[in-house]
């Protein structure tokens, strides 16, 4: 096993201290910070996400892996080219108004940060107006909304409509995700993308950033 595989393996086991230690070692040995993130941390987190979906592991395992990833990111982030992120673009994320479920959204946030996006996390119970205002003020090109309740999914549509009403849809793209959603629902409310899990969210956001004109 090489050093990056060791990082991924420790992350899969949720060993926070070990992941941080191995990350420091890797940096000391001159490994590229970007590769540590992609082939170590994100690779491990993707495995964790898959096992969770298959009920082979449970939420505590996912949360510990996310903690390990967060810890390692704090060390690696300042060393990535572009300082804060890798300049991949800015994303505003949050859980939609009326909804307090933030575990999935937090995982998406961790993965996006890891992948090199500059993430502004508004927390939970976020109004459509706040999503759009924050995106405009911060110059973000993507809004990412999460919902876990069938009753709050409808509020996402309001945010999508607001983006269009304010004629921001050329500049700002919208991705939605959360357990009760589907590709079809996302299309119906006019969102630009649907994220099935945290890794697919990263792929889709990368594509959206490319599309949005600045």
């Amino acid at each position, binding site marked *: 096993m090489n050093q990056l595989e060791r990082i991924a393996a420790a992350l899969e086991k949720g060993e926070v201290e070990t992941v941080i230690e191995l990350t420091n070692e890797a940096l000391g040995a001159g490994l590229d910070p970007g590769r540590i993130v992609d082939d170590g941390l994100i690779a491990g987190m993707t495995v964790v996400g898959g096992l969770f979906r298959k*009920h082979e592991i*449970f*939420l505590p395992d996912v*949360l510990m892996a996310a903690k390990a990833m967060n810890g390692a990111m704090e060390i690696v982030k300042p060393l990535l080219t572009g300082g804060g992120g890798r300049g991949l673009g800015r994303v505003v994320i949050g859980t939609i108004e009326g909804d307090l479920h933030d*575990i999935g959204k937090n995982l998406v946030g961790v993965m996006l940060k890891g992948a090199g996006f500059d993430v502004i996390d508004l927390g939970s119970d976020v109004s459509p107006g706040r999503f759009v205002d924050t995106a405009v003020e911060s110059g973000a090109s993507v809004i990412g909304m999460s919902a876990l309740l069938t009753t709050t999914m409808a509020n996402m549509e309001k945010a999508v409509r607001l983006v269009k009403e304010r004629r921001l849809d050329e500049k700002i793209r919208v991705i939605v995700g959360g357990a*009760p959603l589907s590709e079809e*629902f996302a299309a119906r409310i006019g969102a630009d993308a649907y994220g099935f899990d945290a890794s697919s969210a990263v792929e889709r956001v990368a594509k959206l950033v490319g599309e949005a004109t600045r």
Partner: protein
Amino acid sequence: MKPFRARLAAGDLLVSDGAMGTMILSKGFDTLATLESLNLEHPDILEEIAAEYIAAGADIVETNTFGASPMKLAGYGLADEAEAINRAAVKAARCAANRAGGRYVAGSVGPTGKLLEPYGDGKPSALRASFAEQIAVLAAEGVDAVFIETMTDLEEALLALGAAREVAPSIPVAVTLTFDETPRGFFTLMGQPLERAAGELKHSGADLVGTNCGNGIETMIRATAALRAAGTLPILVQSNAGLPEAAERGVVYPETPDFFRRKGEELITSGANIIGGCCGTTPEHIRALCAAGERRLS
């Protein structure tokens, strides 16, 4: 009125009420910050809902206090109102129960919404203190039982149960969890197997164990059978009417009262001692469960 525990010991089948939240919303209160703020503003609505469930045949009505632990209310700036909110809810349910006679009032206690350390920032002692504060008020106001419900973490459920045993040692306590069905059996969200949950809750002094909310009544039947196989305590099951689906206006819950009537019989056969409803159920669902139990309607 025969004490609640005596009914359990006699092996009587009891029916509890159905959803509170979706009933409140259906009465036009969809702009509340939190459902519990209704307790101070409109206790008459709570009494009305309890009366509807009683008319449908419910033996037990629950208080509108699912989210009324001080820790949960703090999220809405209402922590200081916790005592008044809990008191008002018991009073409203008690009024409806007394009018009908022979009905029990169960104090509802839901999760704090915090993840315990090390996964989140929830301190066990703080959660336990918050539960103790709420349950002490429910007990002082005279509930016949405490229903600790919709727990997703066995550890949090045990903290609530410990608090109940401490501040209200003589009041019967039921603990229900929501389980995910996996190819390897039923687990809580935090990965604790159903069998372990049943064992630890019994060991820690629960009077009933059970499951609520969930993913429709058919899953509940399987979970009940698993609970029956795992232990000897009486079982409380409150099923939701399936997972809600988005509709033109708002949401619809797919499982009808008729479906509940048909499946209710299986639920009883699989070992449930108290049956009732959760999200999306209505007095009609409760009427159907009563019919399933071949009970005489009031």
